[in-house]
């Protein structure tokens, strides 16, 4: 799966869970500062991403995923 494919998969999840406009989702965007994803919604994003991409994202890893790009890199490395 390419980084672009992972990004667009995350964009779908972010739209469903937090109402984020998919056009706003890019690797440089911060989940909290740019996309307004709060901590509870982030939990939903992580669980949905695990399911969608077939990876495990432990809780202690989530705090390191500040940007969409961080999440894409983590998912790319795991899958």
């Amino acid at each position, binding site marked *: 799966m390419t980084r672009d494919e992972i990004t667009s998969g995350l964009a779908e999840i972010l739209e469903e869970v937090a*109402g984020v406009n998919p056009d706003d989702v890019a690797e440089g965007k911060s989940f909290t500062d740019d996309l307004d994803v709060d901590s*509870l*919604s982030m*939990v*939903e994003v992580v669980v949905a991403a695990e399911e969608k991409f077939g990876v495990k994202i432990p809780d202690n890893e989530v705090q390191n995923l500040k940007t969409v790009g961080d999440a894409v890199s983590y998912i790319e490395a795991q899958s």
Partner: protein
Amino acid sequence: MSRPDVVVTGLGATTPLGGDVASTWDAMLAGRSGVSALTQEWAGQLSVRIAAQLAVDPSEVLDRVKLRRLDRSEAIAIIAAQQAWADAGLADSGLDPERLAVSLGSGIGGATTLLAQDDILEASGPRRVSPHTVPMLMPNGPAAWVGLELGAKAGVHSMASACATGAEAIALGLDIIRSGRADVVVAGGTEAVIHPLPIAGFASMRAMSTRNDEPEKASRPWDKGRDGFVLGEGSGVVVLERADHAAARGARVYARLAGAGITSDAYDIVQPHAEGEGAIRAIAKAVADADIAKTDIVHVNAHATSTPVGDMLEIGALRKAIGDHPVLSATKSMTGHLLGAAGALESIATILAIRDSVVPPTINLDDPDEGLTLEVAAHKARHLEIPAALNNAFGFGGHNVALVFTRV
């Protein structure tokens, strides 16, 4: 020391009769029933297959993402509160948030969230349980959300007294303003538990009507053929305001909340006191608190849920507490029983009855019980000048609340 007058300056509701106060009131005056057959698949297994469901689903009002983190009872409380807030004209009034409080509750709370998340827990495991579960099911959720939406910083209070909740929340609002803790209180009730488990629970108590073939005729307070209440869902919210505060900003005033009476039976966890002793005391206290003559109360919006025992006990209590002169309404004949929202919605009906000089009809009163020895506006609304009116609400646990509203 003189205590401040408290008036009602805003109303909001979403009910089985309409998505707002105006449509609900129009339907009430027209004598329309909001009860219908439950067509959901799960209803097939139940002995009770009717309910009064919301006329306007919250998804038509609030956006999808917001609804994901709201229990239905929270969503409709927000909708009703926003209406009441707009109706009161407080949005751009410069009200100090530290002078705004919320008093709002629910009889049962976020039960449908609890049950839905338990289904997820059983089917998919704990990791799939929504992180929104706790704020969705916590009993203070609806009040907290309303406080958040309106920016209320003088305290958010969550009443829980079963079917007296909405009325008791309004009574608490009166106390808050009288004691000087706030100038404005957004008060009311909410309930949304049309789900097989609560229905099965009430049905097992034999408290609900099983007139499944005639949904619109199932809620029939004081009629000989009544066989239990019909579950309804919805929310009602009023804006209570210190009278001089309302006057200073030129607010439109619906009515005065003149008094409240609250008692508890200490008798039985679900049965009302056999002589209605607690109800009598609550009504008498409300009249005394309002400092009016009991003969001034010419209209009562009764609790009257359509149960065989409760309906008649209330008649006896009213006769003892205020006499044989008031004209009664049982608007639950149209809305069903909104449990924790009932006392709030019926307060709104009481307030509008005063404003419009009209007693709303009690439908389905085809064959009145011999015990009905007070006058009722059966089938059709009736014109009546109403200087003062009473709203009763009683709840499992032995809660009795009576509110007196007067014309301004």
